[in-house]
Every structure is written in structure tokens, then in C-alpha cells.
């Protein structure tokens, strides 16, 4: 196994956040179904006068506030509708990132966070329009650009930073604390580096059969061609890869090659054939190639013969390393890579950068998104929709749980008497002076409800 692949398999992106399309679809269905039942329960258990909890919270334009209070269950979003809304919100996220002039990596990380979060959480449960801001803020931190929350809030017209901070831990939980996202941007640079060295070296040494258009006469155009391809590929990576589920289904290098192939097919194929150039040494050349289960029928055979026609300067007769090499850079694996990149290319081509206009088109929004939003205002989770309120309630819970024995709200926080089972172990240990000081400071500084809170009072 190639060392590069082994290293990629160590990442959380591979271990936690890579799924096959069927798995991902199943998970989204599950999430949708679970959200439906839960929200139905909650709505049913709500008292009739529930408008005070749900009405003012959503940032979506609510056309009919009375609609939320109807006792009958609303119509829920289906999984495809959720996907539609999520794509729309992803484009909103990218637009917000552009508005704040963030680097590509941050926007991409935020988009990945956003989409990952809504794999196991339904859009009906947590408000996407707030979560996308949270994702952007958290992505800034994840990418090492530490911006102050007030500054950040101002950019999006949010005066109360609490609105952003409230969703942060929630987002982390949804991400299962895997906050390192591997992007294809730098990989694209690497590919360009490799490609820029190719023509002048390879054209002289080995006459490669595939790319006929790379003759010496076109050499001087290479640079421009590479630059154009890179520009286009980067555009695709900045939009298409983020708007689709490519990050779940493909590795960054595959996404990169698919984008490159969309930009300039010849370059991508050239790079792949260049990389997986190894042909098994003569004694076990063609037959062994067909025997291995990884080969896919006549296609592989034709490739093998093609390869044999273009002999390369490999004088490595060692059997063992030969097999290793076949595993790493052999022609069978090349065919699989080509196939994978082809599917990825299809996926990316659904959301080409030109679709940016589609997602901001007023008519489209009115026709497709607005009805969904309208639906959403009726069927969202009444308990979870307001993140600030949710966080406040959770903190109170935590404080109640943690402060059950010692330190109630008004009492002395260091009430060191023991009761019940704890008394078996004798008297309480004396509090170290430093701790005592901190405790005293907390009682002096924190006001009211912040006392039992490990994170201090309200900001």
C-alpha cells in the first residue's frame, strides 16, 4: 500500500466523515425520520399557547405567524427537500464568506462543517441560517485565523455575539469534534508543480502514446495552458466541490483531479497515467495482470497491451518490490482511479461555478426555496430552534447537576459539610488556598445565574 494512502487513512476525514453514497443517503433518511418523530412529539406536547416560544425565533420571514400554533401536525420536509435547502444554504454560506472576504480555505472548511453537521442533524431541528454563520466563525478558528467575535458579528450585522457563540459547541458535537478538514487546494498546486515539470523531461526521454497534443511545438503554450487550467480548476474547487457531497465520497486528491479534468481533461489524464505508469516486469507481465481480481475485464486488457507497446525504462527485476509497485502505481489501480475520478467529475459537473447565479437568482429562490422555507417555519423543532435559549437551558441543567451537592445559588459555595455516603470517608479535605481564592473571586464577580456556571457569568 502506498504510504500516501496509508497516511490519508489516518485522518479523521477518512475515518469519521467518509461515506459511500448509499450510506450517506441512508443516514440522511434516518436523520429526517428521527427529526420528524421527535418534532411531532414535541409539537403535540406543547400547550396551545405556544406562539411565544416559537414565533419570534426564526430569522426567516414568517408570513403567517398564526400557522405555527395550529394544533394539527404540520407537513414536514422530506429528505430531498432538506438536501435542496442545505444546498441553498451552502451557497448562502459561500456568499457570506465572500462578503467577509475570507480566504478560500476558511470558506471551504465552513462549508464542509455545515454539510457535515446536517448529516446527523436535521434542518428542521437547528436553524440553518444561524448555523452557517456559526460554521463560518468556527472555521475561522479551525483554520488558524482568530478573529474577535464582535468584529465577526459586525460583519454579519449581528450585534449580540451570543447568537453565534450559542451554536458553537453544538456544531462541534455535530462534527464529532473532527475539525481538521483536508482540502484539495494545495493539492492542486502540487499537481501543477508536477505537470509543469513534465513536458520538457518526458517528451525527450520517453515517447508517451497518450497525449499527442503535447508535442514540442506546443511547449511554449504549456505555461499558459497550465495557468488557465489551474484557474478554472480552482474555481470549481471553490464552488462545485463544496456544493456537492464530494467531500464525503472522495479524497481531496481525487476531487482535485476531477476538477482538473473538468478544466482540462488532457492534463488530468496525463498526470494520472504519468503517476501510475508502472508495468509489471516481463516474466509476469500480461498474464498476471489479467489474473489479478482488481482488473476489470477487457478494458484492463487493452490497457495492458497499450502499456506494453510503450516500454519504459524500468530495469527492476526484483519480484517482491515489483508486486509492491504494482499495488502502488500499477496500471490496474490506475484504471480504478480513472473510474473514480470520472464519477467524481460527474458529481462536480452538477454544480459548476456557473450555478452561482442560479442560487442567487430571485426567480429561482421564489419558485424553489421560498416554499420550503415557508414549510420550515411551520415544522421546525420548537425547543431547539432558538439556539440562545437552548444553550441557556442546557447550562442551567449542567449547573444544576454539577452544583447539586455543594454551592447552591445563594449559599456559600464552599459549604464543606458532607452528607450521606460521602461522610463514610471522613471529614472533607481542606480546600487549597488558591482554589478558595478563585471561589471567592467567582462569588464576587459572577452575578446571579453565572455563579454555578463553569464558564462564568453571561458575556
Amino acid at each position, binding site marked *: 500500500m502506498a504510504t500516501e494512502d496509508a497516511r490519508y487513512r489516518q485522518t479523521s476525514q*477518512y475515518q469519521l466523515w467518509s461515506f459511500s453514497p448509499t450510506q*450517506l443517503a441512508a443516514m440522511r433518511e434516518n436523520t429526517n425520520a428521527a427529526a420528524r418523530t421527535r418534532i411531532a412529539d414535541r409539537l403535540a406536547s406543547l400547550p396551545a399557547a405556544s406562539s411565544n416560544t416559537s414565533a419570534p425565533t426564526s430569522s426567516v420571514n414568517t408570513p403567517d405567524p398564526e400557522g405555527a400554533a395550529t394544533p394539527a401536525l404540520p407537513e414536514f420536509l422530506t429528505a430531498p427537500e432538506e438536501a435542496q435547502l442545505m444546498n441553498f444554504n451552502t451557497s448562502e454560506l459561500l456568499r457570506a464568506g465572500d462578503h467577509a472576504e475570507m480566504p478560500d480555505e476558511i470558506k471551504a472548511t465552513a462549508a464542509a462543517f455545515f454539510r457535515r453537521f446536517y448529516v446527523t442533524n436535521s434542518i428542521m431541528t437547528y436553524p440553518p441560517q444561524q448555523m452557517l454563520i456559526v460554521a463560518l466563525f468556527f472555521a475561522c478558528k479551525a483554520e488558524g485565523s482568530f478573529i474577535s467575535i464582535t468584529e465577526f458579528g459586525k460583519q454579519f450585522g449581528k450585534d449580540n455575539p451570543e447568537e453565534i457563540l450559542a451554536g458553537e459547541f453544538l456544531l462541534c458535537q455535530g462534527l464529532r469534534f473532527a475539525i481538521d478538514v483536508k482540502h484539495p487546494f494545495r493539492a492542486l498546486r502540487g499537481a501543477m508543480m*508536477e505537470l509543469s515539470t513534465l513536458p520538457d523531461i518526458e517528451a525527450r526521454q520517453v515517447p508517451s502514446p497518450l497525449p499527442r497534443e503535447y508535442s514540442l511545438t506546443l511547449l511554449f503554450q504549456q505555461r499558459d495552458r497550465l495557468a488557465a487550467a489551474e484557474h478554472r480548476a480552482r474555481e470549481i474547487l471553490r464552488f462545485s466541490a463544496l456544493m456537492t457531497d464530494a467531500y464525503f465520497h472522495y479524497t481531496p*486528491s481525487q476531487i482535485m483531479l476531477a476538477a482538473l479534468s473538468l478544466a482540462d481533461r488532457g492534463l488530468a489524464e496525463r498526470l494520472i497515467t504519468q503517476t501510475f505508469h508502472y508495468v509489471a516486469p516481463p516474466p509476469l507481465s500480461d498474464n498476471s495482470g489479467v489474473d489479478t481480481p482488481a482488473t476489470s475485464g477487457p478494458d484492463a486488457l487493452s490497457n495492458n497491451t497499450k502499456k506494453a507497446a510503450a516500454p519504459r525504462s524500468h530495469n527492476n527485476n526484483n519480484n517482491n518490490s515489483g508486486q509492491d509497485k504494482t499495488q502502488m502505481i500499477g496500471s490496474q489501480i490506475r484504471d480504478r482511479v480513472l473510474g473514480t475520478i470520472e464519477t467524481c467529475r460527474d458529481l462536480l459537473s452538477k454544480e459548476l461555478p456557473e450555478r452561482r447565479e442560479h442560487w442567487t437568482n430571485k426567480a429561482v429562490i421564489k419558485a424553489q426555496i421560498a416554499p420550503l422555507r415557508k414549510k420550515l417555519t411551520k415544522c421546525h423543532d420548537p425547543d431547539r430552534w432558538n439556539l440562545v435559549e437552548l444553550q441557556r437551558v442546557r447550562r442551567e441543567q449542567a449547573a444544576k447537576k454539577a452544583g447539586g451537592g455543594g454551592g447552591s445559588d445563594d449559599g456559600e459555595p464552599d459549604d464543606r459539610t458532607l452528607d450521606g455516603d460521602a461522610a463514610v470517608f471522613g471529614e472533607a479535605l481542606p480546600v487549597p488556598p488558591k482554589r478558595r481564592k478563585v471561589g471567592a473571586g467567582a462569588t464576587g464577580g459572577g452575578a446571579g445565574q453565572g455563579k454555578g456556571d463553569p464558564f462564568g457569568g453571561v458575556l
Partner: protein
Amino acid sequence: MSRRAPPGARTGAAGSGSTSSSALAAINTEDMCPVCKTIRYLNKDMEFLINPECYHSMCSNCVNRLFNDGPNQCPYAGCHRTLRRKGFRSAFFGDLAVEREVDIRRRVAAVFNQAEDDFETLRDYNNYLQMVEDLTFDLVSGTDAQRRAAEATLQQWEAEHKADIERNRKAGREADEQSRRRLAAEREAARLRRIEALREAEEEKRERARSREEELDSLAHGEAGAAGGAQRVQLKKRGQAVASRAVEAAVKTDVAAADVGRLSIRGLKEKKKAPPPEGPYDPFGGLDFVPSRYKLRPELTHPGIEKYKVDPAHITGGYNFDEYTARAMFEAFAGLGVFIEDEKEVGIGLSAGDVATMSAGIAAVGDNKMELA
């Protein structure tokens, strides 16, 4: 006459009620042979012997009398054990129950003689000790059935693990031997040191006497200044001698310590067998960083980084552009051969079901919290 007094006193006391009975009891248990009723008073060097068959004590006279002609029945009423002369010995403890328990424990310990090192974990060892203790308790104070069962277990174990037991016994003996040798060596060293110290003191005394005499002589000859010089020289020489002797002694003790199995510190745990060499520590858990799909070459570069290569803000700090190149190249080729669809479908890593149940779990926790609210 005074010899006769105690029996007279006893008979006198016998007449006077309750005090006599307690005195008699004392005599009964401690000083009277229950077989021949001889009392210690009449036979000063009377010795009580027991046989570990039944732990009934009797005086040595009775033993000689009864068992000289070969095995015989225990003379205690109701005890039908056949005893042999050879089995008799004097009891170490006054309380024969304790004597018996100690005997049993010794016997069990001789059979169950595993050391802690023989076990994988401390827990196993403790469990083993518990088992042995239970068995011992059954032997000491269990009912007949329990005792028989324990006895059977003991014999079975002994039969099955004869080799182990023998080996452990030998190891124990060796350890004993070693510690004894070490103690002896230490004692010997201490003795030598003492002798040395004595000799030194003696010598010093003699030296002092001689120097004093010399001083007196010199005074008598009227050479006061010379005497002072001599004294000083003398002192200096002696200091040298002491120092050199100290060095010698240190070397000698070192050698001695090396002789006695390299163990000069008491209570130091003996080093176990060295673990097999396992090679240098690999912080990356076997990942190797040699690229297999590309080669890092100096001509790899990108127009995007060219301008930074001459930018003082970047080159002054010593930024290495090769690092960037290596990273970009790695990312370009990492995971090319990872086919997520195939690998995740066959269940490498976390499957969809796991994720779903996990998220359901999170949601359930959240629900509980909300309901509490």
C-alpha cells in the same frame, strides 16, 4: 525438707474448696501428664511430646514406655489413631490448636509455593492467594467433609504440579541461600572494618607516644623549633596516610560488593530478566514518509510561490520552500488509491449504522435534558 513443702501445701489446699479446683486445673493442663498423671514437681525435666497425627500431648516417659516396642494406639480415651515413636516431637506453641494450624499452613505452603512473578497480573496472584487461604481454612477449621475435600485438592495439586513445586522450592532455597550469603558477607566486612579500626587506633596511639617521646627528647636536647617542624611533618604524613587508606578501603569495598552477587544494598528488588529488545521507538506507528508516487525534485515549483522566494519577509525568517513543495506534492497524491465507496461499504472504519445510532444517542441525551427542563 523444703522440698516436701509444696505437696503438703497442695494437700492442704485441696481441703479448702474452690481455690483448690483452679489450682488443680492449672496443674492439669500445664504440669501433669494426662496419661500417667505424673506432675512436673516430681519430675523436673518432664517434657511433653505431641504427635501431629492427633495432637494429644503426653510426657516423654509415657512415649518411651508405650511406643518403644513399635506402633501403638494413642492412650487417650476415644482416640484410636495408631502412633509411632518417630512422629513425636515437642510442641513449639503452648496452644496445640495453634501448633496444628501452623503445621497445616507449613504443609500447604510447601505445596502452593508459587511466587508473584509466576502470575500475569497482580489480580491473578491475589486470587491464587485467596484460593490457598480458603483451602487452608477448610483444613484447619472446616467440617469433616470440607477437610476431606481440601485434603483431596491439596494432594491432587501436589501430584499434578510436582515439577513446578520442586522448581519453586529450589528457587526459594536459592534465594534464601543468596540472602544468607549476602548477610554473611556483610557481617564479615563489618568484622574486618572493626579489626581495621582497632588496628588503626592502636597504631595511632603508638605513633602519638613515639612522637611525644621524640618531642621530649628534642626538648631535652634544646631544639624547640626543630621539634615543631617535626610535629607538623608528622601530622601531615598521618593525614596522608588516612586519606590513602580511605581510598584503598573504598576500592576494596567496591570489589567486595562486586564479589557478592552485585548486591550491596539491602531490600533492593532483584532485577528481573531484561525484556527482549524491541527496537527504537517509532512515533509514527510504522508509517513511513518516503513518497511512492512522486519524487521530490528541486525543479518542482509553482508560479504562485515564486514571488515569495525573493520576498525578504519570507526568506529572512528562514522559511523553507521545500516544505511547501513537499506538502503540496503529498496532498496531490495522498489518497488517490483510497476508494471510499468500496472501502466504506465493506465496513472499514465506522459504518453508517454506527453513525446513525450514535447520533440517535446524542439526540436522546438532548431529549432527556429537555424533558428535565
